[in-house]
C-alpha cells in the first residue's frame, strides 16, 4: 500500500530546473533512500512536500488524499514529520517545551504539560529514544538534539518521517544507534524517507533506493540488488576516480604546535594543550565531530586568533604575529570552512575576491589597487583552474559552490604554499568537484607542502591522509599512522569513548 505518492512534480527557479517530472512513492513500513548529489533536487522536493514551495506542476498524495500545496500546516496534519539537517530547536527552552511548541492552540490559557510529559515518555520508551524531558536543549549533544527532533515529529503523530542528511553530524557509533531506532520505527508501521549522499549508510539502512540527478529520477533499485559502485555511477552519471594515495618521504616540520591552549569564546570549544607537528610532503587528517575544537584550531592556524598560551612555530620560527596577511605572505594556504560566507564576498566581483588575502601586498604602494594586474591574474587563474563563470567582472555570488571552492583553491594554491590548512574542503560539493579539490591537495603535497585536512568525512580522511589525528573536547589524540588505526577506533575516539593510549602513537 502506498503511503506517500509524488506525481509528476516539476519545479524550476528561473532557468534552473530543480525538479523535472519526478514521480515516486513510499510504501508502508518501508525505508526509502533518496540519493543524489548536492543540487540534484532532493531538498527542493522536500520543500514542496512541506509546503515551503509550490510545485509548477504535479501533485502529492498522502494515504490517497491529495495534499494542499503550499501549506506547511496541511503537511503536518497529514502526518508528515521532518528532521532537518540543521536543527529547528529553540536552545533556551527545555526538551518538553520544544516538543509541544506549536502543537497547542493559542487560545488555551494553560499548557497541558502533564499529558505531554506522559506521551513523551511513552514515545521515548517505545522506540528507545532516551531523553530527559526537562533538560535545556542548549545543554544537549548533537545526537541528543537529533533525538529531540525525531520525538518532536512522532509527538505530532507523524506516520511518515523524513530525515535530511541525518548522519552528517554524528559519529559512526551514534549513526549505528540511530539506525537501530529507525528500524524499530518501521516495525511499528511508520514509513521513512532517508536523504543522503553517503553510499555505505544507504546500503545499510534502506529497503529501496531512488537516485536523483539534475532534478530527474535516474534510477530505482531494491537495496539488495545495489552496490556502492553502481550507485555512485548512477548518482554522478559517469565513473568517478578519486586521487590515489601516495606515500612520500616527509621533510622538515612546517608547523609545530606546542602546548597550545585557546580559551573558548562564544559558542566554541576551548583548546587544551594541543601538540601537533606537520611536516613537508604529508597530509594529516583531523577527524572529529563538529564542535570539538576544530574551529578554534583552524582559526589559530589561519591567523584569525592567537593562542592564549603555548607556542606556534611556523616553518621553524616562533610566531608572534597572528594575522592572515602575514601568514599568507609566509606561504600558508588557507581554505576556510564556510566557503561562501567566509571564503569569498559574494557581492564583490570575482577579480576582487582573487585579491582578497593579498589586498595590501598586491596593491601599488600599498594603497592604490592595481586593477589591471589583478584582473589579468584573475583571468589566468580562471583558465587554469577551469572556474565556470562569465569572466573576472562577474558577481561572485553567481558561482556554484564547486566553482567558489575552485576560486579559493586557485587563490591560495597558486602561490605554491608550504603549509595548507584545509577546513572541510570537500563538504557539500558534488563528486566531480570533490575529486578536483582532493587532487589539488594531493598535488600540493607532492610539490612539498604540509597539509592539515580537517574533515568530518572519515572516508575522505582515510583515503588521503598519511597520519590521522582525532579531536575531541578540545584535545587532540594522535596523530597515528593511517595504516595503524581503523575507522572503528577513530569513531570511538571521536565520541570520547576510547583513549588514545591504547593505540601506538608516533
Amino acid at each position, binding site marked *: 500500500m502506498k503511503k506517500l505518492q509524488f506525481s509528476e512534480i516539476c519545479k524550476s527557479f528561473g532557468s534552473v530546473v530543480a525538479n523535472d517530472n519526478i514521480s515516486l512513492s513510499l510504501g508502508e513500513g518501508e525505508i526509502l533512500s533518496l540519493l543524489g548529489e548536492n543540487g540534484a533536487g532532493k531538498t527542493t522536493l522536500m520543500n514542496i512536500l512541506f509546503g515551503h514551495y509550490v510545485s509548477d506542476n504535479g501533485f502529492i498524495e498522502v494515504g490517497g488524499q491529495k495534499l494542499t500545496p503550499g501549506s506547511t500546516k496541511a503537511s503536518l496534519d497529514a502526518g508528515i514529520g521532518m528532521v532537518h539537517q540543521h536543527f529547528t530547536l529553540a536552545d533556551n527552552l527545555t526538551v518538553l517545551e520544544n516538543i509541544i511548541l506549536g502543537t497547542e492552540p493559542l487560545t488555551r490559557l494553560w499548557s497541558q504539560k502533564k499529558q505531554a510529559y506522559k506521551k513523551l515518555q511513552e514515545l521515548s520508551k517505545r522506540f528507545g529514544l532516551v531523553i530527559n524531558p526537562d533538560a535545556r536543549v542548549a545543554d544537549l549533544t548533537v545526537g541528543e538534539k537529533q533525538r529531540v527532533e525525531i520525538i518532536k515529529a512522532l509527538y505530532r503523530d507523524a506516520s511518515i518521517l523524513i530525515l535530511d542528511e541525518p548522519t552528517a553530524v554524528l559519529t559512526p557509533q551514534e549513526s549505528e544507534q540511530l539506525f537501530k531506532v529507525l528500524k524499530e520505527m518501521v516495525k511499528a508501521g511508520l514509513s521513512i524517507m532517508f536523504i543522503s549522499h553517503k553510499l555505505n549508510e544507504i546500503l545499510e539502512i534502506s529497503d529501496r533506493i531512488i537516485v536523483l540527478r539534475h532534478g530527474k529520477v535516474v534510477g530505482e533499485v531494491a537495496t539488495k540488488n545495489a552496490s556502492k559502485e553502481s550507485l555512485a555511477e548512477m548518482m554522478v552519471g559517469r565513473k568517478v576516480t578519486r586521487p590515489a594515495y601516495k606515500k612520500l618521504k616527509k621533510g622538515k616540520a612546517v608547523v609545530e604546535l606546542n602546548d597550545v591552549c585557546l580559551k573558548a569564546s562564544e559558542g566554541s570549544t576551548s583548546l587544551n594543550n594541543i601538540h601537533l607537528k606537520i611536516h613537508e610532503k604529508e597530509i594529516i587528517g583531523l577527524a572529529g565531530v563538529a564542535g570539538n575544537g576544530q574551529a578554534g584550531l583552524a582559526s589559530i592556524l589561519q591567523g584569525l586568533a592567537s593562542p592564549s598560551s603555548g607556542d606556534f612555530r611556523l616553518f621553524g620560527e616562533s610566531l608572534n604575529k597572528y594575522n592572515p596577511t602575514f601568514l599568507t605572505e609566509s606561504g600558508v594556504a588557507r581554505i576556510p570552512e564556510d566557503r561562501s*560566507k567566509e571564503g*569569498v564576498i559574494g557581492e564583490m566581483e570575482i577579480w576582487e575576491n582573487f585579491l582578497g588575502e593579498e589586498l595590501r601586498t598586491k596593491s601599488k604602494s600599498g594603497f592604490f589597487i592595481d586593477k589591471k594586474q589583478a584582473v589579468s591574474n584573475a583571468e589566468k587563474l580562471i583558465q587554469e583552474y577551469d572556474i565556470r563563470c562569465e569572466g573576472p567582472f562577474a558577481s561572485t555570488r553567481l558561482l556554484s559552490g564547486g566553482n567558489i571552492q575552485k576560486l579559493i583553491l586557485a587563490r591560495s594554491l597558486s602561490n605554491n604554499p608550504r603549509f595548507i590548512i584545509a577546513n572541510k574542503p570537500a563538504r557539500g560539493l558534488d563528486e566531480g568537484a570533490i575529486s578536483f579539490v582532493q587532487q589539488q591537495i594531493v598535488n600540493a603535497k607532492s610539490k612539498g607542502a604540509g597539509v592539515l585536512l580537517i574533515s568530518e568525512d572519515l572516508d575522505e580522511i582515510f583515503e588521503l591522509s598519511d597520519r590521522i589525528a582525532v579531536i575531541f573536547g578540545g584535545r587532540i589524540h594522535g596523530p597515528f599512522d593511517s595504516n595503524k588505526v581503523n575507522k572503528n577506533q577513530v569513531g570511538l575516539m571521536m565520541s570520547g569513548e576510547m583513549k588514545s593510549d591504547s593505540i601506538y602513537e608516533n
Partner: protein
Amino acid sequence: MRIKTRRNTPVWLIAVLPLLSIGVAFIIGAFFILWAGESPIRAYLALIKGSLGSTFAITESLSRATPLIFTGLAAAVAFRAKFWNIGAEGQLYCGAMAATLIGTGMIDLPAPIMIPMLFIAGAIAGCLILLVPVVLKTHMKVDEVVTTLLLNFVILLFVNMLLEGPWKDPMAMGWPQAARIIDNGVLPTIVAKSRLHLGIIVALLMSILMWAILRFTVWGYEIRAVGHNQQASTFYGISINKSVLMVALFSGGLAGMAGVSEVAGLKGYLTLTLSPGFGYTGIAVAMLAQLHPIGVIISAIFLAAIYVGADAMSRTIDIPNYIADILVAISLLSVLVGAMLTRYRIVWGK
C-alpha cells in the same frame, strides 16, 4: 503573484530607478495637492519655477544642496560599511562650533589659509565627537544607531547653552547667536547677487574624492568588503574595528564640514536654526543615491530643489510647504521598493 530572485540586474534598471521613484512620488503627491484644494499642475509649475525657474532660484537650490551633499556623503560612506551613523546632525553642529571657536577672532590669517583651516577644524571636530560611539561600538558592542542618534540631542543642547551663555553675541540684540565669522574666514560667493558660496565647490570635490577612494584604493575595498561581509573580511585579514574607525572618521569629518560650510558660507554665524535637519535629510540623500558618492550630488540637488521649490510654491499658491516632505518621503519609499525590484522580479500568476 510571486516574487522571484533575479540572477543579475540590468544596469539601465539601476539608473532609471531613482527617476521612476521620483515620478511615482509626484503622481502620489498630486493627490495630496488635490486634497488641499489646488490644481497639481499649477502647484508643480510653481514648484519647478521656484526651484529652477531663474538664476536666483537655481542658486538657491544649489546653496541648499551644499550641506546636503556633505551630510549625504557622510551617510553614504558610513552606510557602505554598514556603520549606521545617524548623528550627522550633531556632527554638523560640532563642525560649526569648531569654525565659530577659531573663526570669530581667535586667529586671523589670510583667506586662502584661513578657509581650509576652518574646514579642517570642522572635520576634526566632527570626527572627534563620532569617536565616542565608535569606541563604544568596537570595544563594548554598543549599538551605534542609539548612541549617534542620542548624541545629536546632547550636542544641540550644548550649542544652546553656549548660545545662551558664553558665546552669546552682545551685538545681536538678545538673539541667541554667536559672533560673526571674521571676514577672512567667510566663504566667498561664487555667483554674484546670490547666496551660493564656495562650499558647493568643496562639496563637489569631496564627492569626487570619496568616489575615488571607494573605487581605486585599498581603503575603499576594505570599506566595501566590511559592509558586505564581515566574516570574509576578517578572513582576508581586514580589521573590522580599524575599518569602522576609518569610515567613522570620513563620515564624521564630512558632516563636520557641512557645519563649517553653513556657518562660514551661508549664515555667517552660529545659531540653533543653522540646520533644519540637514543631518537627517542626508540619510535620505544617501539612500536615494543608492550610497553612490556621485549619485549623492544629484540626489542632494534634487531634494534641495524640492524643498526650495515647495517654499516658493507655498508663497505663490495657498499650499503648505509640507508637501515637500511628502514628496521626499514618497520618493524614498519608492526607491526602497524599487531597490527590491532590482534584486527580485514580480511574476504574475503562479
